[in-house]
């Protein structure tokens, strides 16, 4: 299977603190790659570098597109999502709580709709071309809402949804930008076992049906072990292990990192 993302010698320093230290790993197409590690290992920092929220001190990140390599360093904040098509979700859910579920999904399609509305001109004139495009966007939103079972609540405020539904909504909202790489920051945090099982199903669906590579930060081992094709383990900003879920479970280094060294 071909590489989707290569991270090469990524280093991120905050003053004297090295949050990520010379990290290299690959993520493949149509695979779920998990990044795990104890608290403060630098997992979210890796995400923030990938998605343009931080500018790494050193190192390169490449997204492979057919035979081209595009460097993610070239793009900053909103362009990562817009141009490079890397989408992300957040550890603490960041929906637009006072807007409806449907509106949340339409904001994710902002750039296409903006062009369709002729930068608001066609929209103000209420031209048919724009109305058709808008209908397509609504259909796409409906497609995703059907998958997560929230179609009936499309017109309710996103902030009024139960916690588990908000998590799922944030993931499908990210999917609405049609990403090549989807980065999920602890999607199972705060979910009950039934909800995490549903989450696993959703992620597997995205992986197989949507041909999207997924990068996952997670503490919930039932999620990590259940769906990961590949696991990268971080501790103090360094990669200490890389392998399949099964290998990770039995790795001495990983157990030591989580539970400490036997005296």
């Amino acid at each position: 299977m071909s590489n989707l993302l290569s991270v090469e010698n990524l280093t991120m320093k905050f003053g004297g603190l090295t949050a990520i230290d010379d990290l290299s790993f690959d993520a493949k197409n149509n695979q779920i790659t998990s990044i795990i590690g104890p608290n403060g290992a630098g997992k979210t920092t890796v995400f923030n570098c990938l998605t343009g929220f931080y500018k790494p001190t050193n190192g390169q990140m490449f997204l492979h597109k057919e035979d081209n390599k595009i460097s993610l360093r070239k793009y900053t904040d909103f362009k990562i999502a817009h141009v490079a098509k890397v989408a992300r979700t957040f550890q603490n859910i960041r929906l637009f709580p006072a807007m409806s579920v449907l509106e949340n999904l339409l904001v994710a399609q902002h750039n296409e709709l903006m062009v369709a509305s002729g930068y608001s001109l066609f929209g103000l004139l209420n031209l048919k071309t724009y109305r058709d495009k808008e209908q397509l966007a609504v259909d796409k939103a409906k497609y995703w809402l059907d998958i997560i079972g929230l179609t009936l609540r499309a017109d309710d405020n996103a902030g009024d949804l139960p916690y588990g539904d908000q998590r799922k909504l944030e993931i499908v909202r990210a999917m609405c930008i049609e990403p090549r790489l989807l980065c999920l920051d602890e999607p199972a945090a705060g979910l009950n076992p039934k909800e995490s099982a549903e989450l696993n199903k959703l992620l597997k669906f995205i992986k197989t049906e949507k041909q999207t590579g997924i990068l996952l930060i997670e503490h919930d081992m039932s999620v990590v072990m259940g769906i990961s094709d590949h696991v990268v383990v971080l501790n103090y900003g360094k990669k200490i292990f890389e392998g399949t879920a099964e290998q990770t479970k039995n790795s001495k280094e990983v157990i030591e990192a989580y539970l400490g060294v036997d005296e």
Partner: protein
Amino acid sequence: MEKKDIIQSFKDSLFTGLIALALFGPIVGLRTVSKGEGLFITPQWGVVFFLVGLCILGRFLININSARRTELKIFSTLSSKFSSITEDKAKHFAITGILFAVIFPFLPFTDRYFMDVAIMILTYIMLGWGLNIVVGLAGLLDLGYVAFYAVGAYSYALIATTFGWSFWICLPLAGVFAAFFGILLGFPVLRLRGDYLAIVTLGFGEIIRIILINWYEVTNGPDGITGIPRPSFFGLPFKRSPDEGETSFHLFFNLEYSTMHRIIFLYYLILVLALITNYFTLKIRKLPVGRAWEALREDEIACKSLGVNPTNTKLTAFAIGAMFGGFAGSFFATRQAFISPESFTFIESAIIVAIVVLGGMGSQTGVVLASIFLIGITEMFRDLEQFRMIAFGGAMVLIMVFKPKGILANRKPTILMHGDKK
């Protein structure tokens, strides 16, 4: 209610009285009167004791009311009923309102004074609707909105007096200038949010005013600009005796000359301008850019993660909001025929922000109600001179106590998947 509570609230009320005494004592108690050879202080302790007593009593009643939480909630039920009525019948309300506004000049009790107040209220409604784009939708607290009002008024005045162009050419130009200034202000404040943004915009408003005062060669400084051309009715001026080769409005329509013609025309002009602002806002709210404004208000980081360009989105909000401020400004200039920096002080910005916030952020109908309430009340108490500002403050306090989120704080989604359920 227990005895202990009563004693507690009584103590609290006395303490309130003490604060009131400290405030009213020097402010109201010592009155300066000029008599012949200088100023003399005349104490008026009676008024002070009356006001302090009023404060104590009021505080005591509020305390008792909040202690008996369940029994005396007349106001909140009243206000919730009020908002549910207007929400259900928002459309009817809007249509009735517009119809009333259209026939208003021809109602029997409408006189010159009412028309002036109505024009003023409509100007503030338009400013409120313009600012609603920036504050209500995009969530950027702009305390210097009056700057764009000033830019619009001065652009109109300068263009009209220098080149002698007609109102209908100068109006869009003034809007363009104001929008340009909106972008100019937008750039440096892009990174700021909340309080910091408010402070910088406040500074911007003052900068514009100070430039207007000091740039004597262009703006004529504190003397202002006089002789700004009045608008004409599509080329027909409102004059008793038109110049050679001109036909004036009353001659063309064979009417008796009356100064009211111009007032009524101005009234309809601002009504149309305000309705255009409203229509535009309602339309653009449902377009991608409007949704992006609201999304930006909700969560800027999430917006970036979805590929929404926050810079452009904010700048369009500033520019469009400023443009409507500029339109209102040119209307103000043509109505007054005289403008000076005096008219564009911070208090104007504060009133417009108050209208938007008290109306309920983002609510178009709320802006109308808040304008009528705030400006109307202040006008009603005009005879009381300096006490009208107390009425203004009191109106604000009342809204904040009973409707902390604004008079109408219900947001309707911009697009529905399942249609209207009602």
